């Protein structure tokens, strides 16, 4: 597929790997129990990074975000990520960043 570059938004969900201790999550779980929420088994705290970028196609956008995750957005020693790539919006003439 080729054509004009388009704006892609990637929602990157960063989580601690299974088995990696999560002191924040444990503290939040204790707080929920203190609020009398029943049945709390486990809480894990992660983060979301939204990246808006101009790319020629979805495959390129996806590959770039994966590289970003490996180089900066996550620490592969303790974290893993999932990506949700949003359908591109048409590029407006005023978008000159690319």
């Amino acid at each position, binding site marked *: 597929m080729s054509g004009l570059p388009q704006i892609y938004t990637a929602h990157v969900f960063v989580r601690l790997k299974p088995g990696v201790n999560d002191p924040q999550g444990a503290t939040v779980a204790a707080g929920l129990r203190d609020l009398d929420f029943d049945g709390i088994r486990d809480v894990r705290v992660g983060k979301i990074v939204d990246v808006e970028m101009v790319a020629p196609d979805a495959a390129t956008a996806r590959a770039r975000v994966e590289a970003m995750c490996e180089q*900066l957005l996550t620490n592969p*020693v303790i974290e893993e990520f999932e990506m949700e790539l949003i359908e591109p919006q048409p590029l407006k003439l005023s978008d000159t960043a690319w």
Partner: protein
Amino acid sequence: MRAAVIVFPGSNCDTDTHHALTEVMGVPTDLVWHATSSLDGYDLVVLPGGFSYGDYLRTGAMAAQARVMRAVREAAERGVPVLGICNGFQILLESGLLPGAMLPNACVEFRCEWVHVRVETRRTPFTGSAEAGRVLRMPIAHGEGNYVADASTLDALRDNDQVVWRYTDADGRRSARANPNGSVGDIAGICNARGNVVGLMPHPERCSEAALGGTDGRMVWESVLARVTA
């Protein structure tokens, strides 16, 4: 001998470290801005403590991308002693110059207190002047010093003599109580395989003169002076 203390936006132990090196140890030392691209001519590089880039994303993650880190890597490859203290240790982990990673303290508290650490190896430039097994009393001040690594990395650290300090009590005995942050294996500091890149959570620059309540940190500086000027 000439030392470089790297300054990132948010470093806050840079001038303390500069003071310890210049005023206490008499080592000519420059504060070097993170945008610098060369560390040629320096015999010692220190990444100081603080909260570089506000600890955004992960502790040390942004600083690990700074231009000066390429020069730090080159210096390390030349065999120059590189010391990362607290946030500096976190930066060395994020840059891959040391293995493993940091998590928030298991107690979820920022711990600011005096601790004891035992010298586990004398082979690094920063521990050569210590007797093996010597217990040092040094201050910590961190929220993320909970060192983790996968099993194979931990095996390699042990087999290659890369664990430099462990948290102990005043008598050198390990216990959960003596470990302030939940760090695996009570690890307080490690080195790379070659031994010249060292990171630790306690602050030797804050205990290098009696006026600060302790002098055990001097051993770190005395060791590297002895190594560099040998």
